């Protein structure tokens, strides 16, 4: 309930203006989001039913774009890749972030320094770190060649060249980029936990492991939510990463919906199909995110 209403029983013009002020402040944001997010989403929905090729066009073609979309094998690959990638990326980032945060929370010397090392990849654009990763993962010049040079001749690490495993190299590089950020979130969460409670549990004879499992980790739930939102948004938008590392290859093995959509909309001049893929993508996002946001936000009330 808004207390501004109760504070002003009688309404002169000035009072009414004052009452409306918070909403006025919020209104530009609402207008902007309505037009530039939801308006554009509506526009994309519309485009997905048109014969748009190089530029938007408004000839109605019904479900043709969707039918064609599902006939394109690369789309299947892109969707299942996103499932694999998203799942691994989010869970590994969370696990690694949590582990690093717990490790760093043990009164570490030079914590600030180490934390910066873990965090810095977030600051770099993938336009070029992609090249560094590409070289590092390349069996001919990267890790495999170096380890073999050390004398371990049978060492193999050629995932990036392998259709079955290439997507996992994308996960490795993506985790590298964001896990430090997740670590920072969990670290912040850990620092906010009430120490009295831990002390009590300690006196009760709880082991370190069960202390974390029973008391610490459940209290990190808000941190998990923030991490999830950030990670899910990164996973869905992963584009630079794929382009820089594999260009979607070998073949179409590492295609993701974002690269698929870009390629159909802009390099293949099939804007209609591109829009159709965007629609499917948005609906999938909505199906996953909306219930999650709803449960989280409702609880807070």
């Amino acid at each position, binding site marked *: 309930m808004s*207390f501004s209403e109760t504070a002003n029983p009688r309404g002169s013009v000035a009072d009414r203006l004052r009452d409306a002020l918070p909403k006025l402040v919020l209104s530009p*944001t609402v207008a902007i989001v309505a037009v530039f997010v939801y308006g*554009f989403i509506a526009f994309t929905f519309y485009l997905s039913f048109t014969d748009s090729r190089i530029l938007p066009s408004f000839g109605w073609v019904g479900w043709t774009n969707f039918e064609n979309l599902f006939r394109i094998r690369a789309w299947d690959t892109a969707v299942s890749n996103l499932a694999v990638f998203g799942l691994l990326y989010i869970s590994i980032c969370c696990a690694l972030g949590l582990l690093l945060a717990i490790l760093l929370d043990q009164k570490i010397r030079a914590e600030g320094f180490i934390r*910066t090392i873990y965090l810095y990849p977030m600051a770099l654009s993938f336009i070029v770190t992609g090249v560094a990763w590409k070289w590092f993962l390349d069996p001919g010049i990267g890790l495999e060649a170096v380890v073999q040079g050390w004398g371990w001749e049978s060492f193999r690490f050629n995932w990036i060249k392998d259709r079955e495993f290439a997507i996992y190299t994308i996960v490795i590089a993506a985790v590298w980029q964001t896990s430090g950020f997740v670590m920072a979130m969990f670290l912040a969460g850990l620092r906010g936990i009430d120490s009295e409670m831990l002390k009590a549990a300690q006196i009760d004879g709880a082991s370190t492991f069960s202390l974390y499992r029973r008391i610490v980790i459940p209290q990190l739930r808000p941190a998990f939510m923030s991490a999830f939102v950030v990670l899910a948004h990164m996973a869905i938008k992963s584009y630079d990463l794929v382009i820089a590392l594999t260009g979607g290859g070998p073949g179409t093995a590492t295609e993701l919906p974002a690269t698929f959509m870009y390629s159909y909309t802009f390099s293949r001049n099939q*804007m209609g199909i591109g829009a159709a893929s965007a629609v499917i993508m948005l609906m999938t996002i909505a199906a996953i995110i909306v219930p999650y946001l709803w449960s989280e936000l409702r609880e807070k009330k």
Partner: protein
Amino acid sequence: MSTAPNSTTFDPAQSGNADSQKRTWLHAVKPARIILYLLLGLFSIYYLLPLYVMVTNSLKPLSEITAGGMMALPQEWTIAPWLSAWSSAQIGVDATGLRPYFINSIVMVVPAVALSTIIGALNGYVLTKWTFRGATVLFGLLLFGCFIPFQMVLIPMARMLGLMGLAGTVPGLIFVHLVYGIGFSTLYFRNYYAAFPTELVRAAQIDGAGFFRIFYRILLPSSGPIAVVCIIWQFTNIWNDFLFGASFSDFDSQPMTVALNNLVQSSHGVKEYNVHFAGAIMAALPTLFVYIVAGRYFVRGLMAGSVKG
């Protein structure tokens, strides 16, 4: 962790203080500490490897790279690639290096970050302290907007910018970044202010303080930590953005990432990898700088705000 439960104790002097670090049971056990540092060190290697590749290769002549020594330390150290990337590498027709584009980026990033942070703060303030029916739904809608793929909005956005007369201008570019930055900045401030005692706001209101006065005098002074988080986030995203920067800039306002991309992606020419890496590190310096300088406030800010319910 391999510590035996019985050997762990709390340091009573420390555990009473909420701000200092509390869990010190590992401290007492030497082998566990060694393993701990070993683990931290191993992870550091993982995070530093790509940087190692970039730095070493930016310091060797091109011939060493193409001869195959991409992972080795330079045999012959040189800073020529750095000088070239900064002031003489070919970006377009003119061999200007990245220097002029730095300014373009800063002119765009600073207002975009400042505006989106301020608006985010105000939104967060309204959504938590002046809440109204439907505020949560509105916030949910705002947040969902963060997930919209940017490739999708490119064409309609271009049309809108054209209609507003902002096509190919710096204000246009700032506007675009603002539009798609508000979601996250609102998220950060909303979660932060949610934990801020509403009683204080109410008391101030009874004392007759107005909307902006309460914000300015009561919330803003304690918003430092979350502002740092928000600024770091927005700065990183906007500075590193390529798609909008390339599409909505003009010949004289192309940002750093577009120039870097031009440097790196030359299609049919000789690829000077050493210059590319030097340029890449250079382009990342402002964000790295922000991380290092503000890093200590970063965790504090996250702690105070965005990860709390």
